[in-house]
């Protein structure tokens, strides 16, 4: 029996999970969506909040055109319908971090409607995820409790920061799919340079709507909304917890209630925040301080021209041009920087793009991860990695030795050639030298030789190992195989 604590729980076959995500991506504009205050993260509380952000009497919002352009970029990138006329609405509720008593958002008429993204899962399956809408809105401020005993502080630096809220269709069927989709959106917004994607700082976060239903049933189950998930890991864990909680609840005769829940990463569980009955009536209505946003064809054309090569286009190109699998192409194009790095390596090596891909995705990525480094801080740059791969390609070293060289490159910051020379790792390709080594090994192991010759083919590996050991691993593997086969045959 799966317990809610078990976050790797598999959904029992008779249940189907239905998930929709609302992703909030903070747009990378320099100033706020309706005021001229800066949006930079980490400033002292309330130093980036002007009278408009503070909701002073008499102030008015003025729309930041850059935020509109960024929303259009996103809309075009997901093949969405761009609404030529969209309307800002007020979402009314009282909260100390909401200075005006309403949030300016888009409600009935969002700027982006009906688009989709395709995600490729690890096993190569493709899935199209519908995007219902994406709308512009302002963020609220933050309530501060730490270090303020007995009172609540309010920091309005974030108030008025532009967000695009990306609402998916309930097309996702597992936590893994949800994460794959969220990663895809994350990749896309960074490609488009409309969001820095920094999840720790809250620049990219999501709410997950989760429900379960008996497999085959068309009607959706009652959903719970898990608020404010700001890491891919939390998304996966929170959703899996929630699935297990809901199934267990139904199995034990209970009913899922529509409510908002919070994920507690320390306890690994979701907790009820407020029920549907307690939900606010937001009294949305069009904001009379702002004119409808009208998108001219010329603006749309200009934004279209400014679009970079998108992740899917790049992945398709990598797959066909470099002969990569769809999954590998997807991994290499997950960030613009990684894709550029890979292409740089391929260009410098000049051939074997598949081998280059293996190195970038393999040891190189593993070392970055191990040391918790971002690509620009890597100890080995594209030229150095290309230098190493070139030495494999030209048979100077074997793939196996290359791993050793790479580790030294990472540690010492020296080019591959210097390490190969210093450690004498150059591959032995001289037929005579390899033959001498084979002869010595055969002479030392007459018993094994006899067994081999009497039909114990498996001993071939033993001889390869012995010769490699004798040559310090430097014998060219292909040559060794060929020569050894001949000699053993007698």
């Amino acid at each position, binding site marked *: 029996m799966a317990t809610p604590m078990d976050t790797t729980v598999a959904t029992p076959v008779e249940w189907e999970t239905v998930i929709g995500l609302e992703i909030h991506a903070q747009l990378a504009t320099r100033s706020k969506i309706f005021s001229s205050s800066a949006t930079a993260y980490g400033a002292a509380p309330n130093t980036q909040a002007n009278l408009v952000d503070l909701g002073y*009497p008499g102030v008015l919002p003025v729309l930041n055109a850059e935020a509109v352009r960024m929303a259009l970029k996103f809309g075009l990138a997901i093949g969405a319908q761009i609404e030529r006329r969209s309307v800002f609405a007020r979402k009314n509720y009282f909260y*100390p971090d909401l200075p005006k008593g*309403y949030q300016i958002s888009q409600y009935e008429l969002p700027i982006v409607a009906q688009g989709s993204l395709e995600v490729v899962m690890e096993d190569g399956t493709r899935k199209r995820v519908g995007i219902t809408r994406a709308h512009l809105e302002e963020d609220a401020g933050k309530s501060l409790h730490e270090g303020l005993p007995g009172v609540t502080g309010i920091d309005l630096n974030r108030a008025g920061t532009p967000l695009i809220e990306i609402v998916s269709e309930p097309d996702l069927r597992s936590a893994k799919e949800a994460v794959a989709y969220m990663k895809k959106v994350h990749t896309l917004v960074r490609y488009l340079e409309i969001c820095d994607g920094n999840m720790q700082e809250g620049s990219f976060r999501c709410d997950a709507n989760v429900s379960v239903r008996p497999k085959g049933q068309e009607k959706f189950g009652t959903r719970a909304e898990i608020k404010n998930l700001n890491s891919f890991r939390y998304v996966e864990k929170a959703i899996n917890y929630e699935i297990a909680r809901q199934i267990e609840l139904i199995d034990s005769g209970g009913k899922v209630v529509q409510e908002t829940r919070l994920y507690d990463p320390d306890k690994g569980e979701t907790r009820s925040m407020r029920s549907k009955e307690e939900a606010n009536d937001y009294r949305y209505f069009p904001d009379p301080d702002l004119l409808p946003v009208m998108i001219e064809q010329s603006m749309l054309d200009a934004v279209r021209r400014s679009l970079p090569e998108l992740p899917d286009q790049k992945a398709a190109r990598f797959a066909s041009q470099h002969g990569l699998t769809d999954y590998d192409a997807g991994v290499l194009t997950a960030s613009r920087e990684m894709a550029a790095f890979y292409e740089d390596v391929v260009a410098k090596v000049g051939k074997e793009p598949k081998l280059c891909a293996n190195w970038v995705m393999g040891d190189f990525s593993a070392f970055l991860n191990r040391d918790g480094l971002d690509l620009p801080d890597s100890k080995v740059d594209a030229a150095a990695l290309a230098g190493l791969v070139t030495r494999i390609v030209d048979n100077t070293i074997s793939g196996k030795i290359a791993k050793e060289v790479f580790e030294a490159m990472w540690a010492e910051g020296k080019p591959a050639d210097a390490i190969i020379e210093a450690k004498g790792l150059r591959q032995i390709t001289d037929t005579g030298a390899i033959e001498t080594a084979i002869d010595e090994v055969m002479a030392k192991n007459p018993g094994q030789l006899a067994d081999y010759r009497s039909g114990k083919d498996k001993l071939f590996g033993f001889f390869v190992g012995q010769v490699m050991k004798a040559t310090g691993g430097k014998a060219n593997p292909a040559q060794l195989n060929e020569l050894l086969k001949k000699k053993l045959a007698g």
Partner: protein
Amino acid sequence: MSALPIHARTLAGLAKGLKQREFSSVEITREFLDRIAASQPALNAFVTVTRDAALAQAAVADERLKAGGAPALTGIPIAHKDIFCTEGVLTTCGSKMLSNFVSPYDATVVARLREAGTVMLGKANMDEFAMGSSNETSFFGPVRNPWNTAMVPGGSSGGSAAAVAARLAPAATATDTGGSIRQPAALCGVTGIKPTYGRVSRYGMIAFASSLDQGGLISISAEDAALLLGAISGFDPRDSTSVDSPVPDYTATLGDSLAGVKIGLVREFFDKGLDAQCEARIREALAVYEKLGAKLVEVSCPNLPLSVPTYYVVAPAECSSNLARFDGVRFGHRCENPKNLIDLYRRSRGEGFGAEVKRRIMTGTYVLSAGYYDAYYLKAQRVRELISRDFANAFGECDLLVGPTSPTPAFPLGAKTADPITMYLNDIYTIGANLAGLPGMSIPCGFADGLPVGLQLVGPHFSEARMLNIAHRFQTETDWHLRVPAAYA
């Protein structure tokens, strides 16, 4: 040289006198400040008088006048309705909620008038948050009508209108959401202009109903209004609803002939609710226009009678949201010792807002609520569209509409406070222009039992120049606008 005392002069007359060094800005500023001080017990037209600052500004103005080349309004003292934010000066909006609010910035209207050289005398009293038609909802007490202090001055710009009527200031800024410039102008016998929605920036004008609010002026004459309107009009990048279209010289066309001008009489304005004496004054005014060569045509705006109920859905809806920011957290009134957040909200707002404001917040909250939005707010917006279309059709047949501003002259204090509906019906002739975003004026056209009667003009969008011309020509034929209550003559 005119023998008129300073206070009796129009703004144009004062500007001329200043230019000709007949008197200094400090002299006239002091004169008006003294009149304000003397009138306060009887009229209560001001919430704040900025005496020292005014005299300092006047002294600076005198220097500029001496130096030459100063803008036309340099040294002219004026009052600002207390709805306009004024940097470093108390800005109360007539409410206890903002009774301690010193604005950190100037409204665009205030800044533009300052740049034009005017001197600020103080902040005029008003209905709380501009919600009222009698100036009785002010936290700072009612304003009284200078023609008869038992009577209301109208509202919400009652302080501005009373101040100009009693010649405490030659002109004052004002705002009009449903008639708040025109109705008090009519009741106090002064000239009031509400420009086209979007003509004057709303930045720094504390919002009541954003889609209806429009800043404007109260003055002695249409000529004075033309001088001031040029200074406050024009696009403001800080107000997205301000319109980016050139501002004409409103004084240039004041004297244009009215020959052939078609004046429309809206049938619905001459209903059974209109006081007989008021109607008589309006008919007399129409005769003046005929004499000036204008042609009278009857037009109809069949949906106009729906303007009051439409307004009382749209305006409260917007106000319920606009006034949410007054929560006791960042500025304004905060209750003593709040127990928790909800208590802070409840008591700060409960104590800070008066009864009429609360009534409108509640009405507005109701009409926007889930399940009622379509039946009230959406339907009202549709009717609003119909009313706009009625006006557009009417302007197909005439250049300007003329009719009464208010159904009756000023009424006694307390007469209508018990019944909000009766009070709301005071604005029955003025609200239509707000719903359609049209410019409107009220000019004095006579008296009924000793109380002023106002003639309302409503024009197509951005027809202010023509409207001022039509008002000015009337004022060259009549002197109703120059009449001053005996106590303030």
